[in-house]
């Protein structure tokens, strides 16, 4: 969660990007630095992916990622926002509307936002058109001979027992998976999968 912001370099870069984006949205100078400070505090412990989204209903912008927090303003339904970071179920967003100067940023519950749809990839081979890194040979790239399969492919499929044997060679034991989890510092939380 903290990996992207773990270095000073990343912090400085993020700081610069945030300032630029705030200036771009025509914010006042004093307000700009106040917002930037707040963002940096949050960003050091949140997911950093910046995306454009659209609010699905009118919601209050909150000072902190909690319903108990004070409000810093609001955004209208269908308003476009820039999602700066995430903390648990909360996005820190800033309004993408150029006209909105006052209280342009704050926390909202992530379920109140939908990412803005990407353009349809006309007959493309799936995600390759979205990710330039797909040309990296070590990634699961999509070759020209393999397209996303559909209903007709399934209807014409024949059982492939050799592939089934191949699948079996990738199996890992519970012990191996537990060691893998420990390496990643994953610990079991007290959550019941099936609620009572």
């Amino acid at each position: 969660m903290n990996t992207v912001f773990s270095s000073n370099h990343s912090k400085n870069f993020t700081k610069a990007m945030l300032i630029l984006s705030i200036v771009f949205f025509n914010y006042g100078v004093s307000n700009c630095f106040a917002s930037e400070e707040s963002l940096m505090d949050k960003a050091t412990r949140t997911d950093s992916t910046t995306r454009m989204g659209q609010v699905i209903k009118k919601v209050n912008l909150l000072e902190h990622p909690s319903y108990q927090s004070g409000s810093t303003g609001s955004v209208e339904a269908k308003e476009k926002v820039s999602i700066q970071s995430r903390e648990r179920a909360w996005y820190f967003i800033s309004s993408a509307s150029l006209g909105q100067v006052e209280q342009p940023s704050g926390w909202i519950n992530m379920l109140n936002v939908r990412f803005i749809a990407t353009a349809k990839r006309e007959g493309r081979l799936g995600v390759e058109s979205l990710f330039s890194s797909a040309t990296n040979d070590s990634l699961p790239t999509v070759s020209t001979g393999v397209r996303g399969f559909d209903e007709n492919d399934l209807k014409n499929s024949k059982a492939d027992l050799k592939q089934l044997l191949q699948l079996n060679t990738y199996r890992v034991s519970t012990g191996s998976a537990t060691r893998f989890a420990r390496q990643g510092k994953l610990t079991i939380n007290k959550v019941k999968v099936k609620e009572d």
Partner: protein
Amino acid sequence: MKKLLKPVYFIFICLLLASCKSTGLKIGNLDVGKLVEQGVNVFNAHNITEEQEIQFGENMSAVLLGTRPLYENKDINIYVNQVGMWLASNSSRPDLPWQFGVIKSSAINAFAAPGGFVFITSGMLMQLENEAQLAAVLAHEISHITEKHHLNAIKEGANRNAVTESLFISAQAYQDNTNDSNQDKEYRTWAKKVTGMAQDLYVKGLNKEDEFLADQYGIRLLAKSGYDAFAYIDNLQVLASIAADDSALALLYKTHPTPGQRLESLAGQVDKLSSTNGLLLGKRFAQMMN
């Protein structure tokens, strides 16, 4: 070998009974006489043993892999198995022979088959940004298996009439126990029955309630296993942002509720899990994909 012999005995007995036109006879919980008489194996999912469930899953998986092969990179397949096995070990059925695979396809989708078989397409994998998101996809599929959703699906409606005992018998068993002259014919019969059912399940998909339930259990399994539970929401947000008429999503949209509907149905879970801590493990994921 022992595993193979049991179903073989079963089919031999069925064939014997077929010739005798017997009725009222039972093997285990199955009324074989009735099955033979009707020509179909109408059953209740609760009557299926775990061994049969696993065999059915193997057969379904073979059909799925007949559509597109596994992605060749061993390290990535093993990585997906490590993540999946960790989740499965925290599920309600940790002792199933869980197997996870990456299918080489630009389709954005993931699949499960009874008995512990889980697949993610390379197209879906490339949409993800961290290990928690990968775990979210796998947790959803694992939940379908722990809740036996596919077995429930074949109990319902038209599927019941398509069920035969051959669904639970391996191709190897047919090949090993039919004489040379009949081998091809018998295998083709098996393959036709098994592929028909697998195709039906994968094309029609599960019912929406099962999908919503797999989301609820999936996000909780993710949280229990130490991952950032809200990566589950991130995934659905990303799916929702891909144009609905994108061909890579055609089958997913045909067989699942829309991502928007799934997000709405998870509102309660998001509130309940609001205080849980978890990890994204973006760095480990990136290292593996590079």
